[in-house]
C-alpha cells in the first residue's frame, strides 16, 4: 500500500541523506533535494514500480529573498493517479545562478509551466527546448513575481507594509 511513510522510505533508500526536510503539511508529503539531482529524483518517482508518480500536476516557484543562497524554490506537485497520492517536491537554487534542469523530457506538461516560471521568477531551466517569456511581453527585462518588485507604488505613504502585517514595527 502506497503511503507517505513508504514513499519516504523508498526515497531514503535510493538517495540517502540527499533528500531532506520531510514534512507533511495537510497530509501531503513534502521533501527537498539538491537541484543537481532534481531529474534523478523525478525519474525515480516516475519509473519505480511502487511509486509511479506519472502525472505532473503543477510546477511553480517561490521567492524567499532572505534565504541567502537558497532564494528561489522550484516546487513540483506530482500525482500518482492510480493510488491517488500527491506529493510535493522542492529544489532550492541561489538567485545568482538560477539554473535548474528542465523536466520537459519527462513531462510534456512541464514545457509551458517552466516557461511561466522563467517568465515570472527567472529560473533558468537548463535543457528546455524553447525557454522564453510566455505571459509577459518579450521586451520585459525583469522577473515580476520576485519579492523586490512590490505591488504598490513606493512613493505612497498611506499604504505601507504595516497595514499588511509585514512592516518593521510588526
Amino acid at each position: 500500500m502506497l503511503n507517505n511513510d513508504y514513499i519516504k522510505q523508498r526515497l531514503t533508500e535510493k538517495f540517502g541523506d540527499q533528500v531532506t526536510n520531510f514534512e507533511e503539511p495537510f497530509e501531503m508529503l513534502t521533501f527537498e533535494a539538491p537541484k543537481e539531482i532534481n531529474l534523478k529524483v523525478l525519474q525515480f518517482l516516475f519509473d519505480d514500480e511502487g511509486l509511479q508518480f506519472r502525472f505532473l500536476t503543477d510546477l511553480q516557484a517561490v521567492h524567499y529573498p532572505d534565504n541567502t543562497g537558497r532564494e528561489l524554490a522550484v516546487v513540483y506537485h506530482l500525482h500518482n493517479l492510480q493510488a491517488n497520492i500527491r506529493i510535493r517536491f522542492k529544489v532550492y537554487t541561489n538567485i545568482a545562478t538560477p539554473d535548474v534542469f528542465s523536466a520537459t523530457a519527462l513531462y510534456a506538461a512541464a514545457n509551458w509551466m517552466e516557461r511561466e516560471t522563467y517568465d515570472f521568477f527567472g529560473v533558468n531551466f537548463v535543457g528546455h527546448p524553447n525557454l522564453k517569456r510566455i505571459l509577459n511581453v518579450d521586451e520585459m527585462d525583469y522577473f515580476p513575481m520576485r519579492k523586490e518588485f512590490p505591488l504598490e507604488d513606493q512613493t505612497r505613504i498611506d499604504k505601507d507594509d504595516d497595514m499588511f502585517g509585514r512592516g518593521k514595527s510588526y
Partner: protein
Amino acid sequence: MSDVIHHKNIRLPEGSIEKTTTTLNLGPTHPATHGVFQNILELDGERILSSESTVGYIHRAFEKLAERRPLYQITTLTDRLNYCSSPINNMGWHLTCEKLLGVKTPKRVDYLRVIVMELARISDHLICNSIVGVDTGAFTGFLYVMQYRELIYEIYEEICGSRLTTNMGRIGGFERDFTPKAFEKLEKFMAEYPKVLKEFEKLFSRNRIFMERLIGAGPISAERALNYGFTGPNLRAAGVDYDVRVHTPYSSYEDFEFDVPVGTTGDCYDRFLVRNQEMWQSLRIIEQAYQKVQSFKGTEHDVYHADAPEYYLPPKGDVYTKMEALIWHFKIVMGEVDIPKGELYLPVEGGNGELGFYLISDGGRTPYRLHFRRPCFIYYQAFEEITKGAMLSDAIIVLSSLNLIAGEMDA
C-alpha cells in the same frame, strides 16, 4: 532576447498548387478563438504543418495582486479565471481558505455549494458544446440552449446579485441564504432543462454532418493526454476516469451518486459526448442536492454559513448595535486578521479540469504566495501536437472543443 520572429515559408515540391507554404495568423482577435490568443499556423494549402501559440494578451497578474490582498478580496480574482464557471472558482477558493483556517462548514452549506458548482458546470459545458456547434456551422443549438444558460445566470443573480463574475459565497458559507425565489427558479430549471438537453442532443449527437466533422478531429491518446497534464472532460474523453470530485471529494461530494463518463479516442466528438453526459450527471447531482437541502429540519434548515467569527462578517444589525460585532466587522473588512502559517494545495473539479490553489502563508495578513493551477493553460500546449497534419477547419473545432478560456489561460 526580443528578436522578431521571421517565419520562413517552406518551399513545396513541384506540382503543388502553391509554390511555398502559407503563414496564417489565427488570432489574437479571430472569431474562432473565442478569446484573445494567437496561433501562427504554417499551412500547405489547407493542411497544418506546424503551429505556434502565443498567449498572455489578457494577463492580469492575479498571483502578484493576491500577495497584497486579504483572503476575502482574492475571491474576485478567481471569478476572472474561467469566467464561464466562476462559482466553481469562488467555491474552490473558499474551500482552500477554510482548509487553511480550519473552518468546518455545515452540511447544508456543502450541499448549497454543490448546487451552484454543478449549475456552473452545466453552464460551462453548455457554452462549450453549443460553440462547437457554431464552429461547425450549426447556429440553432447555440441560440436554443442560451436561454437556459440565462436561467442559470438568473439563479446566480438571486443567490449573490451578479451574473458572470459572481464573487459568490464567503469564507465559511454564503453571504445570505438562498431566497425562496432562487429555489423556485432552480425547480423551474430542473423541470425544463432535461427536455432542452435532450433536444440539443437530438440536433447534434447523431447528426451525420456533425459527426463527420468531429470524429477523428484532434484526437489524443490517454498516455499523451496524461503526459500533457490534461484533466477534466478533455482527459476523460481520452479514456481516463480521473475526476477530482471522486478522487479527492470536497464539499461533501462523497454523499452523491453520479457516474464519471469517459470516451475512448479523445477526439472532438468524444469531448463533445463526455461534456453532454456530464451535464446529465450534474443534473442528477443537483436533484440529489436539492432533495438533501429540503430535508433539513429545525435550526439546520436555515444554516447558510459556518461559525467563524474571525472571517465571516457579523450580521449588519449587530454591527450597528454591538461592540464585538463592530470590531470584527472592521477587522475583517480592513483585512487585519492574521492568517495562520501553512502551505497547502487544494484541487477542485473546474469546468475544464483540475483547478488547483497552491497557497503559502507566512502568518501575515495576505498570502505569501498563491498559485493557480489553471487547467486550460496546461492542456493548451498540446494544441500543436494534436493539430499537426490536420486541416485548418479541424483546428477551429479543436480550439472550441478544448474549451479554451483566455481568462483562465492568462491568469
